[in-house]
């Protein structure tokens, strides 16, 4: 792995993290492990966000909306200058896939911890990436990346047949994507999709592709250095999605054989090498029931779901991103490492939303946060008890990631972890995630990208009202906690007593040693 002296001689002294929430916390931790100071930036409403507390330094970006804070290139660069940082990590979302930002970072004299802007241009947009994939002989879905206006798009849709998928040409991830099933809905869908794309990416051009169903979402994690090397760190399966936002992600995929893994890895690295890709990236594919895979898009950044790859490969992708950005060689960093996936990892995204109520997102005060713990459980969190969830940004609060020797045990572990998790004060998807993890289709790895759409009962949840136990628990939670505080910790035997038991037994056992014999 990375030589240990790297920690005492870090590649950068100080790095600014142009992001918020859990990913900014995770990057700050990774930087600290490398002996690098972190600089957080934050909007007004994020002044007490977990990522600000985790970082060594913090610079306010005045304002609240994403546009006036985390998307404001001038403000981010000014913060970097003011903080004395020499490099910028963009995280995911916000400016992470914006090559204009990457260029501005480099032109201002900072290192951009991400791929070269030229590689981002060629692979980042869905349109450009589709053209590169075609040129690299990577199979693509029937459709078009040439947007000549609504009329021509509707004509293409008529030729390839419904249903079709509309995607923002400049987009990454699920933003600006929509499924259109009926031809008569296409015109309205184009208007809405273009508006979302314009708002999110400043570009309203569209790609139209046939919607492949049933399909699984399989993506390949790639990592390149500045010396022409690109490695595949294998697949993740992210088939459990709703509205193109991933819900559960795992590695490896239950249906990807070693031969298919090599084939998809080779396609992904060929595409990356073609454009001189450096740093971390993800090449996404759809896999149909016959085992054919089709190129979807490239995410030219660290992914939300990167932890599952870390858990099965034993690598730290943030550390590797930093070293690669500083000019490190993958052949040295990965020398002698067995990169084959070991065991099974699954990630659940905890979001402030109500799947039982049409996935309505929510904001507000988190009154109680209890995150799970135990062997094989990792929590990448951006919140705490008392944290405010602002209405301005993505609704993801944290990620619960489990590792186990095999998939069945990983499912059991995730179910157990979710059952001992509580985020209270705003609605969350915790109960929904557990329903999906405990569902027979998920346990049996019978996954497809439209499974949540086809099975609305998973989102709806049980229809019966609360049992007597729940009502008893509600009233007891309210009775015990204030009583405990009112009675000075409950040592006097009043209501809520016995949080701290008497220690008198230890006083009586004079000379007792727990772990050694008394001489």
């Amino acid at each position, binding site marked *: 792995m990375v030589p240990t002296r790297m920690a005492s001689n870090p590649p950068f002294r100080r790095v600014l993290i142009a992001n918020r929430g859990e990913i900014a916390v995770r990057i700050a931790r990774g930087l600290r492990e490398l002996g690098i100071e972190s600089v957080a930036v934050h909007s007004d409403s994020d002044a007490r966000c977990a990522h600000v507390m985790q970082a060594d330094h913090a610079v306010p970006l005045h304002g609240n909306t994403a546009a006036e804070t985390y998307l404001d290139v001038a403000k981010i660069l000014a913060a970097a200058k003011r903080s004395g940082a020499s490099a910028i990590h963009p995280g995911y979302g916000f400016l992470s896939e914006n090559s204009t930002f990457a260029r501005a970072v480099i032109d201002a004299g900072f290192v951009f911890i991400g791929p070269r802007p030229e590689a981002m241009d060629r692979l980042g947009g869905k349109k450009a990436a589709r053209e590169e994939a075609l040129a690299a002989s990577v199979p693509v879905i029937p459709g078009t990346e040439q947007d000549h206006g609504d009329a021509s798009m509707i004509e293409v849709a008529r030729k390839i047949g419904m249903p079709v998928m509309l995607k923002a040409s400049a987009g990454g991830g699920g933003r600006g994507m929509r499924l259109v099933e009926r031809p008569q809905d296409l015109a309205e869908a184009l208007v809405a999709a273009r508006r979302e794309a314009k708002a999110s990416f400043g570009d309203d051009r569209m790609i139209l592709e046939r919607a492949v169903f049933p399909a699984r979402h399989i993506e390949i994690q790639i990592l390149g250095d500045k010396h022409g090397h690109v490695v595949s760190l294998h697949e993740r399966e992210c088939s459990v999605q709703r509205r193109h936002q991933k819900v559960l992600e795992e590695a490896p995929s239950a249906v990807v054989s070693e031969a298919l893994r090599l084939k998809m890895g080779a396609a992904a690295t060929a595409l990356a090498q073609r454009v001189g890709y450096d740093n971390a990236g993800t090449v996404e594919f759809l896999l149909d029931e016959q085992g054919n895979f089709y190129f979807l898009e490239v995410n030219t950044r660290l992914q939300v779901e990167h932890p599952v790859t870390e858990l099965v490969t034993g690598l730290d992708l943030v550390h590797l991103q930093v070293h690669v950005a500083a000019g490190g060689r993958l052949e040295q960093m990965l020398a002698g490492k067995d990169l084959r996936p070991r065991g099974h990892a699954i990630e659940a995204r905890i979001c402030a939303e109500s799947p039982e109520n049409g996935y309505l997102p929510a904001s507000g005060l988190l009154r109680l946060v209890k995150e799970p713990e135990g062997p094989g459980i990792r929590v990448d969190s951006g919140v705490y008890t008392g944290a405010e969830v602002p209405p301005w940004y993505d609704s993801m609060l944290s990620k619960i990631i489990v590792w186990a020797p095999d998939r069945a045990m990983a499912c059991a572990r995730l179910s157990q972890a979710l059952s001992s998790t509580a985020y209270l004060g705003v609605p969350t998807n915790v109960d929904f995630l557990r329903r999906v993890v405990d569902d027979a289709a998920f346990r049996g790895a019978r996954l497809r990208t439209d499974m949540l759409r086809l099975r609305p009962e998973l989102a709806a949840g049980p229809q019966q009202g609360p049992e007597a*136990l729940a009502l008893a628990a509600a009233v007891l939670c*309210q*009775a015990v906690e204030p*009583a*405990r505080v009112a009675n000075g910790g409950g040592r006097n035997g009043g209501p809520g007593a*016995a949080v701290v038991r008497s220690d008198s037994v230890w006083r009586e056992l004079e000379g007792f040693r727990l772990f050694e014999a008394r001489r």
Partner: protein
Amino acid sequence: MKISREYVCDGKPVAVSAEWIEADRWRVRVGDQTFEYHAQALGDGGVWLAPVGQEFDRSFVAYGAPAGKEYMVRVNGRTHTLASPSVRRGRGAPGADGTIRAPMSGTVLDVHCKTGDTVTADQTLVVLSAMKMEHKLTAGLEGVVQSVAARKGGTVDQGAVLVVVEPTKNHE
């Protein structure tokens, strides 16, 4: 010490109370049922619960916290959001009374109606952008638009009245 609450269950109000007996024992009444529970605060916000006499067979760790005017409790792997009968769910659920409210704070992207318009139940009246997503707010019932408070480009708080629709009389 005793605390009493009333929560709506399956549309009906249910009286719930907890009365301290001694040590960690409480008498709990749920409607006309009476239970005895051990209840111990765990310090992480959780409360360990066990029905007296069944400590070794049935015990739970519950987490509870207020959520706005409601109370959220998570126990036995399920989260319940309990409302008092006095708190009517004015959450803009369409179809209730013709008042279209913002389901959450956000920006009004578009207003597709004006006062006097006749609208159908599934007609989109307002498009709201919140948490980076577009939300189409539909009329929920047939009727005539009485007033439009939403303005394109304006920001609105959760629960704000956006449009009021007078239901068509012969709708039933």
